[in-house]
């Protein structure tokens, strides 16, 4: 446990010492702020219009019209920027030769992997904490439901963790950060668009492709529904990524 914390601490410090994390967090907040502003603005104008008809006004729900679409948009933003956050995790150690220090220290490979994973996850959590400021505005000017909001953040956390573990794997197989980021990005995009081809695929393939897609599992969470399948899906993708990384690191030494 202490070894994992040693690595996590080091990763967090590295993120803090380099501009990467600051730039990514700023870009993330800027874009998500833009989305939030637009949604609110649209919601406002709709509210004004519907004031005339009390029946329709009751239908208006800030969770459904602002936060739900915002969570979806943000999940796409995460997909776009996370390859850049994870690309250096192993590649940089490989390129600069510091991996020799890690692999000759009395510490297990799995501890290194989990330590690095938790380091990047910390950045994710910081992003989500900043993001939650937007929902505070929601509470000041309206009465959103709390559960769907919490579930939305939980969903982003779970999805982000899956992104990180995939990024971690691709970072472990190359010493070139751009290659690592490109492969991660390609893989994440593929897992996103799988459900589209699922629409066209035959009846046997369709449920499989749909199941594998990232965003299919992000439909219910922002509505406040936590399905076991969604939870299992994100956690197993995360585990799978970490497992692949571990297998690759072990096998590489024997070649």
């Amino acid at each position, binding site marked *: 446990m202490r070894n994992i914390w040693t690595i996590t601490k080091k990763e967090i*410090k590295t993120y803090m*010492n380099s501009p990467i994390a600051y730039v990514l967090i700023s870009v993330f907040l800027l874009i998500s702020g833009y989305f939030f502003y637009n949604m609110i603005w649209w919601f406002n104008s709709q509210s004004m219009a519907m004031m005339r008809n009390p029946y329709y006004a009751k239908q208006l729900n800030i969770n459904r019209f602002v936060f739900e679409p915002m969570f979806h948009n943000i999940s796409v933003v995460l997909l776009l920027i996370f390859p850049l956050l994870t690309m250096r995790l192993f590649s940089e150690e490989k390129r600069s030769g510091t991996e020799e220090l890690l692999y000759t220290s009395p510490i297990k490979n799995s501890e290194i992997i989990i330590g690095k994973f938790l380091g990047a996850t910390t950045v994710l959590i910081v992003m989500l904490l900043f993001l939650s400021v937007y929902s505070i505005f929601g509470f000041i000017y309206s009465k959103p439901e709390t559960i769907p909001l919490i579930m939305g953040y939980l969903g982003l956390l779970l999805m982000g963790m899956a992104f990180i573990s995939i990024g971690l794997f691709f970072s472990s197989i190359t010493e070139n950060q751009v290659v690592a980021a490109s492969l991660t990005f390609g893989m994440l995009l593929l897992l996103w668009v799988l459900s589209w081809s699922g629409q066209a695929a035959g009846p046997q393939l369709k449920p499989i492709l749909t199941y594998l897609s990232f965003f299919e599992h992000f439909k219910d969470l922002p509505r406040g529904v936590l399905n076991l399948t969604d939870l299992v899906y994100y956690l197993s993708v995360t585990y799978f990524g970490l497992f692949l990384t571990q297998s690759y690191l072990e096998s590489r030494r024997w070649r």
Partner: protein
Amino acid sequence: MIEVKNLLRKYGEKIAVHNISFSVERGKIWGFLGPNGAGKTTTMRILTGYLPPTEGEAYIAGYDVVKYPLRAKTHIGYLPEIPPLYNDMTVKGYIGFVAELKGMKGKEKQRGVGAAIEKTGLAPVKKRLIKNLSKGFRQRVGIAQAIVNDPAVLILDEPTIGLDPAQIIEIRELIKSLKENHTVILSTHILPEVTQTCDGVVIINEGQLRAAGSISELQKKFKEQKGIYIKTEPALEMGQLQMVAGVKSVKADGNGYKIYWEDESLGEKALFEYVKVKDVLLKEWRIITPTLEDLYLKIVSSDKGGIQ
């Protein structure tokens, strides 16, 4: 302290290290010699647990590096060819991080970091970022991280490469001072370095162990002999020198000759008598002791000629 048995390592089909065995006892410094690509780094990487051997065994402080890697690793300090430094850490922060990696905590860690900084003379730069350090200091930081947990075995891969002469001497003195508490293996291309710092030497070429032992042992084993370098004015004739009693061979070297004896105890006197009789001016009379360089070149070049 270090024991290696029949080590074999392949990269794909290529054999990098072939059946190497040797052992080093506590408190000694051993030098690894060999041309580039001879298998020195591979051997060191196996000892440190970075690479597993394809066959064979290696023991550090009694622990098998394959079966008990974590235990073996706690007894090793390792400086790779490229010092494994994180450029955006401070010197002290970095050494503290390595100490934690090696499982040190609290006061033990503080003491270890303090002692490592003290021994390597890093105190004046301990708060600086590693990326701003000169090459000599970077190398010292590399050594400091290797000794931070006071390991029984130190493995240093080319510790003086790329340093200026003054820095080389400093690092060499530092390594010598480490001998008291650590068993050290270092690899190098610089032969005088081995003669000056090491108790024993392992010569590797083309993945095979060519020689291992103390320097005097090796000299005996390879029948390197003493001789005399002689320079006179006017120069003597080579043919005549060969006729002097007890002389085995004569080689021209610059303006003088290198003379080797059949029997060291008899030859010198006969040669001196001969010079006296010839009545020439004796400019130089010097005993040639075989250097490690001669030995090394003999071993390595014999491989090139295909003589096994």
